[in-house]
């Protein structure tokens, strides 16, 4: 995959480029916003890793100008700022993900894999985790190769969990998605749906974090 790395700190940029190249990514690196916008016009990469603190143009500004022309490019923001407003602002302006410095390389690689998956999903639209495969286009779920029939709510719940595999989704956020699907949510509705999903997909697939929420293990086990 082609990555454009926009980062002005030389040691960071060089070492990051090296780390990404070791993962077989093709990495171009520029250190100013102007240069980034120029490269984007000539040779559009699939993914941009954009530092917000650039010497010439503010990173958010670069992001805005980038989005005007290139709708499909995935953008991962890197920043030393960590306030919530910055994060929300970045995502509002069209970033796909956000990572605060200093980060673990493994975390960055995991995020890149998620973004890659999202891009490939547009083509294949199949998420596979362990023995469970979900075709988001055909709205079909298979478990160990066999098609599993899921009611709409259970399907949406499973989709939410699988799309964000590896993360703990809190009860509140899952319930609010249930609400947004127009369901009347009884106090134990979430448990009931999870219970049904487990009966169909095995007990180990969805993990409970008591009092907090649920998670599905990540696609790949990280080192």
């Amino acid at each position, binding site marked *: 995959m082609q990555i454009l790395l926009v980062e002005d*700190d030389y040691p*960071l940029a060089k070492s990051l480029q*090296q780390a990404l190249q070791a993962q077989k990514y093709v990495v171009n690196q520029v250190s100013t916003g102007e240069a980034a916008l120029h490269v984007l016009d000539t040779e559009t990469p699939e993914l941009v890793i954009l530092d917000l603190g650039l010497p010439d143009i503010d990173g958010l500004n670069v992001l805005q100008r980038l989005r005007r022309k290139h709708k499909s490019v995935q953008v991962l923001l890197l920043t*030393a700022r960590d306030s919530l407003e910055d994060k929300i602002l970045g995502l509002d302006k069209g970033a796909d993900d956000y990572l605060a410095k*200093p*980060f673990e390389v493994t975390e960055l690689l995991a995020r890149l894999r998620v973004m890659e998956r999202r891009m490939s999903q547009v083509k294949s639209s199949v998420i596979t985790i362990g023995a469970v495969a979900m075709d988001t286009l055909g709205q079909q779920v298979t478990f160990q190769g066999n098609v599993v029939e899921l009611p709409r709510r259970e399907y949406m719940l499973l989709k939410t969990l699988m799309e964000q595999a590896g993360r703990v989704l809190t009860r*509140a956020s899952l319930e609010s998605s249930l609400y947004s699907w127009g369901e009347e949510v009884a106090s134990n509705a979430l448990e009931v749906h999870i219970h049904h999903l487990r009966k169909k997909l095995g007990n180990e697939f969805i993990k409970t*974090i008591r009092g*907090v929420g649920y998670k599905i293990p990540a696609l790949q086990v990280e080192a």
Partner: protein
Amino acid sequence: MNSIRSFILTGTLSVLILFNFIAAIQGYRSSMAEAEMLFDNHLLEHSQLMTLLDFSSLDKPVMTGSNMVLQVWQNDKLIKSSLDAPETLIGDGSPGFDFANFNSYRWRTFTRSVRSDYLIIVAERTDLRFVLAENVILESLLPSLLGIPVVGFIVWIIISRGLLPLKNLSQLLQVKKANDFKSVTLGHVPNELIQVIDSINSYVQRLERVLEREKRFSADAAHELRTPISALKIQLHNIATEAGYESENFLQLKSGVNRLQHLIEQLLVLYRLTPEQFQNTCHVIELSQICQDTIAAFYPVIEKKSQSLELEEMEIDSEKKKLEILGDTFALETLLTNLLSNASLYTPPGGQLKVIIDADQKYVYITVEDNGPGIAESERELIFQRFYRSKSNAVITSESATNGGGLGLTIVHHLAQLHQATVTVSESSLGQGAAFKLRFPRLCS
């Protein structure tokens, strides 16, 4: 001097009373002298009158007022006297004014010798003179005595009017918020206050600049420190990838970098969450929500150590009320994350962590407990000090010795104080281990 108003009021009234008093004494003395002269003249006139009388032709006793007596002596013989005059010679017989005591009063006497064989003595009670003088002085003093409360009241009003700009200024400053750096302006500023207001305004401006610089420093420092640390971490990753394995020395270097990162993060938190900043970002926060979010975000750390973590919400009221407190989301998340990270750090792999939410009428409680080695009673006070690290042998693992920056619980303490919460350390309910209990004032909806 506690109050300018009472200082001026008591000062003014004291001076007023003092001068009235001095004037009264002076008036009394001059009235007394006047009265003396008046009465002496009176006596003189009386005795003058007596000389014109033919004493031998008088057979009835001489009538005088009860305040006056009269004696007429002829060659040491009392030939005439008023009714209440004594039988003996008043005074020593030498002519002129004098004082004498008889009839249990003090008298002013005037002795006059007439035609060398007569002695006319006229005497008048002296206390009457005092009464007269006192009456005169009392009448002149009374209006000013009665006037003092009136003067006090008027002075009070004048002072109040005079202090009004000061009062307005202090009210203005009182309602001024910590983050309000607008200049202070008053409608009519008296000359004395112009300097004060100018000083306040320039002080506020300086403060604003300092705070602005602090804010910028905090953001700059974050950037300046986080970027090189990121580079260090990536370089470490690259070295490990290149070498294909992680040597003991490499692992030590890695944990050193992690420790540096941790310390910087904690210092930035401590730096950023000052009480002034906190006031501006304070809002209503639902406890169970923020606990769920924090735990969800922290879960990877727990998973890495194969520990378990659960959240338990006690049934508090029969009706399901949301538990709310006033606070700052970032601060509360940092607080809880610090407690969780502390618990996870000091609990061996496979251990158990638990967060409990509880409440009563006045308070809400968040308890973070683990089944690690726990904290000795002697250490429970010390752990909140800056850079203190538990020394009990059971606790030191290679991980805790390097990862814990020693600032985590200081920050917990600081953030709890910002939220008017208390932190107490006790035994965990999980058989063994430590429990950190936060107590927040409950927000009643």
